């Protein structure tokens, strides 16, 4: 009996070594926890501004007032030990609080606070900038007006506004201004590029030959050279299902923009994202489907040359058939489960393109996530009507929304073809919280793709085609896991904190990877917030 027991243990250990995940992740890192702050769920870290030799600067947002509808912003400074050393509310009491806080960014070695004001008398919206003293987080006396855009019509509830992007080296600021226009007018936007001292390098007013209600700007980015790339989705006026993805390049040397329509062969673009690579070219990547179909069948990318705005490299390739049949087709069991929940018949294995990364070697990585929600309605109980006796009506009853974040599909493309496609199994389900603790954080380090998410501890050695245990917020058998995928597609998984020991849950959606590659993972448990800094070596 004893020998049988030993044999069973030996077989079990052998089976464990056959799992898809390797023993160790191929990246080395340090972890450091910040102190806990006793803050309610109405407080959240909104944005990381920068990290320098003195520590971290970030923006904290706090909901206040009745119904928690208003927001206050605080600029915070943490030291190298991640201890909060200074916090100042961002307000504009000097001018009667007329201005509204927009963003705060680091440009060069300065932090700027950007604010806006809608002047009804001038019918214009103005953007202002003011630098911050990094030592005491007070404003310096250098408030300037940066940009103005036209506000057509009356009142404040218009679509006009400002959006921003910073170049990879933090030397260029893009202000993307959208003036308010009617749907039947042509699509218009303003591009302003500033250097790190907020001197304007380039200013363009673009009016496209498409109607505003037929064109949607999807993304815009500025590279280190000060060139701006914009990508949009144009819907044909004659056919609602006919979409075109169009890319634009703006440069101060050019009189007007350069347009490039990204066309695929016998395919429709379903999702597209844009990033700037190390050569300052714009890379557009995404999923495609057959003509007028919703089912994703392949991936693509285009690289637009920064100098010529021509397509430098492209790739259009179907996802391997064995991956599609294994992971992207609803099983009969899944269909039955879904039909009991809702009368609709969506594709359970529907992937949404959630992230695109461009690695140091130029490879393009697309990360898609299964993501859907459904409602469960309880009918309540019947009660005889007092007004119409004999007639029964439903009383009470409720409806709950469940949020499901499932498997990840990671595709790596290089030199014009798909190198590998990987399925990362996970299942995160939550109720009535919009999936606050769900989803994942993407990161990269030395050509490795890194995915961080909360998972059930039983999934630690789950194979790629395994059925994962559900991660639910209430369960203690969970933790934060890091999955790495190297250049060859080898995966490894590591738990770096557990709910049981560290008494906290990660919030990947609120977390980020800084420009210097450190990761800040925000976490929360009951009423205390804290974050974890992961520094790669």
């Amino acid at each position, binding site marked *: 009996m004893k020998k049988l027991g030993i044999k069973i243990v030996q077989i079990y250990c052998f089976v464990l070594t056959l799992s898809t995940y390797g023993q160790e992740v191929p990246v080395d890192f340090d972890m450091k926890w910040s102190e806990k702050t006793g803050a309610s769920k109405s407080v959240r870290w909104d944005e990381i501004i920068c990290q320098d030799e003195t520590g971290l600067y970030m923006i904290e947002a706090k909901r206040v007032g009745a119904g928690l509808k*208003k927001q206050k912003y605080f600029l915070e400074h943490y030291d190298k030990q991640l201890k909060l050393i200074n916090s100042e509310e961002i307000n504009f009491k000097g001018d009667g609080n007329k201005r509204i806080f927009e963003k705060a960014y680091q440009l060069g070695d300065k932090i700027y606070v950007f604010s806006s004001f809608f002047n*009804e008398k*001038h019918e214009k919206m103005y953007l202002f900038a003011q630098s911050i003293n990094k030592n005491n987080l007070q404003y310096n006396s250098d408030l*300037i007006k940066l940009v103005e855009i036209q506000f057509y019509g*009356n*009142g*404040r509830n218009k679509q006009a506004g400002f959006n921003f992007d910073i170049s990879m080296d933090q030397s260029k600021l893009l202000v993307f201004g959208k003036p308010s226009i009617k749907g039947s007018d042509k699509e218009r936007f303003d591009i302003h590029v500033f250097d790190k001292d907020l001197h304007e390098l380039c200013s363009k007013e673009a009016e496209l030959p498409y109607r505003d209600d037929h064109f949607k700007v999807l993304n815009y980015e500025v590279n280190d050279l000060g060139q701006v790339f914009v990508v949009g989705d144009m819907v044909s006026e004659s056919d609602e299902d006919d979409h075109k993805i169009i890319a634009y390049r703006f440069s101060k040397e050019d009189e007007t923009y350069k347009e490039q329509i990204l066309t695929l062969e016998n395919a429709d673009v379903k999702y597209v994202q844009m990033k700037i690579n190390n050569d300052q070219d714009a890379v557009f990547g995404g999923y495609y489907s057959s003509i007028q179909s919703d089912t994703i069948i392949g991936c693509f990318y285009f690289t637009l040359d920064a100098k010529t705005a021509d397509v430098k490299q492209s790739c259009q390739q179907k996802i391997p058939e064995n991956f599609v049949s294994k992971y992207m087709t609803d099983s009969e069991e899944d269909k039955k489960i879904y039909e009991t929940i809702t009368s609709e018949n969506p594709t359970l294995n529907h992937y949404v393109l959630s992230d695109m990364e461009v690695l140091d070697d130029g490879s393009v990585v697309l990360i898609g996530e299964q993501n859907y929600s459904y409602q469960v309605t309880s009918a309540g109980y019947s009660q005889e009507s007092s007004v119409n006796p004999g007639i029964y009506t439903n009383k009470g009853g409720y409806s709950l929304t469940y949020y499901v974040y499932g498997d990840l599909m990671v595709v790596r493309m290089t030199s014009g073809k798909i190198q590998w496609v990987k399925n990362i199994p996970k299942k995160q389900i939550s109720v009535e919280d919009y999936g606050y603790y769900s989803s994942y954080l993407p990161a990269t380090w030395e050509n490795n793709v890194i995915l961080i998410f909360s998972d059930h501890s039983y999934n630690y050695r789950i194979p790629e085609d395994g059925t994962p245990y559900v991660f639910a917020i209430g369960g203690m058998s969970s933790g934060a896991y890091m999955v790495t995928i190297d250049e060859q597609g080898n995966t490894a998984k590591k738990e770096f904190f557990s709910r049981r020991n560290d008494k906290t849950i990660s919030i990947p959606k609120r977390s980020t990877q800084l420009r210097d590659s450190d990761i800040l993972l925000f976490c929360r448990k009951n009423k205390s917030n804290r974050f974890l800094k992961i520094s790669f070596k």
Partner: protein
Amino acid sequence: MENTLFFLIVFFFSFNIDYAQDDSSKNVGFYLEDGGLAESRNIFKINLLSLATGDLPFFYERKLSNKYTIEAGAGILLPYYHREIMDYLDYYIPEIVDPKTGYSLWFQAKSYITDDAPKGLYFGIQYRERRYNLPERSIIYTDITGMWGFQKNISKRWVIDYNFGFGYRYKNRVLFKDEEVVLPFGLKIGIII
């Protein structure tokens, strides 16, 4: 003499330095100057719908904070009366017959829900008193109602406020006796000062 010349030179350059100094705060001030529209706290209004029942009031609404305002009004009662909406819902006995003169007083505390006051959806508690001087007596109507309304700009300085409510009416200031249900409706036009 030399000292005088020295001081004159210093003052001259001081003046030049002040003149050449970049006064960015004045430039920024131009962009923030909007004739007081962003800081305006007062609105004067008139209720067009109450004219139908013979009431001509003028209102003043004052912003107290980004969420709360108070509104006060006073009006004259015109020499006619038309029955109100709830009178069509039940058996109606004319009470205000051949009115001569009278006055109305209004007071409402408002809480704005969707936007900064005084714009957007609001909820208020309204007190309204009307004294009708009839040929042989006077009648005082006191309405206490909960009001829902929406106020928005129709131009830079003009606003429109449409509202409705539910409450009770008391007569001759005797509360909780012979009360009637009232369903007030209002359409006000106002100017921001």
